């Protein structure tokens, strides 16, 4: 018999470790044709960090996304970026890119201020134009600015890095301020559980994430959807089998390590919640791990809601569900 259940998972999650130093850096150069070479150590493993770095550089410099050429994660040339882990790259490498761009803008601002005869602090760089905040008729295009830079023999190069305020934790009890900002999320899911075969059908998932300012909303949605699929696998499919004697993984192939297929993944409604930005670039926070985490308790709770059995170990396999249902039936019969 199929039984329906619903579950909710909520979480808050720290981004930007402050317990230990946690830096990343970026190099940038704006060239005469207004194209930009941006170099970051940040490894894009498919989550789209290079896209986000280019967007942050374009926004900071007042250029277009298309102008930015990103060289990333090449240890021969790119600066330290730290690990792509801990939901940190948008936050930390993103801030490094912003700082590198601000560094490169020193010469750009000096030159524009001279040409437009306005104070540097009044200058706005936006959409390939440079103008005075107080008098928008005082303006020049980026190519004009780069022409002036060439005339003066000035180069727009910058380096920057970002390290969250390292507070360190109390070595005695690890107390302190462990993260610079926090991401918040809630995931709700609906499942059908077949009490006879133990099959779990995850039907619908709504997953809402506070990401501060979303730098790229489509990619944030993609990360949420990916996290939901991973969370489903975490609860219902994925199990690393280890040989008790040798410690070798017994199922290191995808025919034996089961992840959800397209057919298993539910209807997903990602909700991107914007909030007051904190220390992140333009107020952005991380979403890499938050996308996954609340799905896990949400599915587990939905299974419990459906059949009235609580599971304290993951994954929950069909055989575990059948065993729990049988045990519950026996318990109720004994009453």
């Amino acid at each position, binding site marked *: 018999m199929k039984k329906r259940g619903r579950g909710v998972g909520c979480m808050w999650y720290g981004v930007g470790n402050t317990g230990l130093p946690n830096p990343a850096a970026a190099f940038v150069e704006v060239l005469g044709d207004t194209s930009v070479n941006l170099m970051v150590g940040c490894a894009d493993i498919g989550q789209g960090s290079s896209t986000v770095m280019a967007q942050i550089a374009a926004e900071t410099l007042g250029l277009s996304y298309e102008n930015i050429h990103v060289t990333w994660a090449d240890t021969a040339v790119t600066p330290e970026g730290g690990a792509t882990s801990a939901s940190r790259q948008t936050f930390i490498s993103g801030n490094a890119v912003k700082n590198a761009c601000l560094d490169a803008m020193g010469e750009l601002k000096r030159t524009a201020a001279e040409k437009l005869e306005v104070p540097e602090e009044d200058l706005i760089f936006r959409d390939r134009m440079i103008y005075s905040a107080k008098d928008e008729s005082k303006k020049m295009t980026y190519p004009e600015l780069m022409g002036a830079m060439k005339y003066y023999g000035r180069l727009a190069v910058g380096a920057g890095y970002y390290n969250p305020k390292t507070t360190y934790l109390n070595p005695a009890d690890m107390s302190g301020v462990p993260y610079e900002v926090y991401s918040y999320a809630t995931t709700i899911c609906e499942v059908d559980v*077949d009490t006879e075969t133990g099959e779990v059908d995850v039907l619908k998932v709504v997953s809402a994430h506070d990401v501060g300012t979303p730098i790229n909303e489509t990619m944030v949605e993609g990360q949420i959807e990916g996290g939901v699929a991973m969370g489903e696998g975490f609860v219902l499919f994925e199990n690393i089998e280890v040989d008790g004697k040798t410690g070798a993984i017994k199922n290191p192939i995808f025919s034996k390590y089961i992840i959800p*297929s397209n057919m*298993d993944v539910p209807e997903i409604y990602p909700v991107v919640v914007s909030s007051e930005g904190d220390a992140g670039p333009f107020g952005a926070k991380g979403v890499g791990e938050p996308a996954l985490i609340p799905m896990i308790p949400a599915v587990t709770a939905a299974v419990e809601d459906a059949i009235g059995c609580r599971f304290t170990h993951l994954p929950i396999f069909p*055989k575990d569900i059948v*065993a729990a249902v049988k045990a519950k039936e026996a318990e109720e019969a004994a009453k």
Partner: protein
Amino acid sequence: MREFDFYSPTSVPEALELLRKYKDSNAIVAGGTDIVIELNERKHTPKVVIDIKRLKELEYIRFEDGLVKIGALTSHAAIAADPRIAERTRVLHTACAEVGSPQIRNLGTIGGNLSTASVAGDGVAAMVTLDASVVLRSKDGERTMKLVDFLNGEGYDKRNALQSDELMTEVFFTEPDAHTATAFYKLAKRKSLAISVIGGGMRCSVDDAGVVTAISLRGGCLGRYPLQFKAAEEHVLGKKLSLELLRETLPMMHDLVLDLNRNRPWSVFYKKESVQGVFNKLFVDILAQLNMEVGA
């Protein structure tokens, strides 16, 4: 170093000639979805590999003389896409539509599936449910046998009755009539790209009064070959079909699975319980298909 010689005949007689010539050590490749893996893993080290993929004459689905005849080289995808199979022979349609992945379904053939005779072969369970027969040809001629006898046969590699110079050319079964319904349910670890945990097959015929005139209840992955729930079949045969009647057989299935799999305590608990869930779904499916005859 050359590990084997490779032949790609273009006609059945040519293939049979090669099989006879190299009967001491050969392997037949049709879709290759099983045998190529076995060759790569050196589970088989034949001197000669014969690729029969060019024998287009063995790719067909024919409805004739009250029989459904399927050429051995017909792919799972082709069977799943045939509207006549989908309408009348749901058990085969579903088994072929859900086996493996799209790539496996495009390459894998029904003849290969039956010849490999995997414990988890969905095509095997479906064809046994349909009480199919297979046609085997060699240079000496042709022989026809029931699939269940084929599976229990002791041929050259002990998998089935196939001799080393024989080629399976066709599988056929009686075309299910309007009073017959068939269904397949694949219980697996996920909804696609999965090997069956149980592949349940059911075929049921009723007369105008709704009395069961023929029944087949088979469970793949529960034994070396699709398990026949004989006591359950006997319980239902000759009685007026209803969900209650069918559900009375569930404890019999439970007991049979438990009996036959006692040596696998880690899997028997789940299988003896879930087999009932699988057949409960099949019962509902069959009754819905026979709606005209038996009522809701």
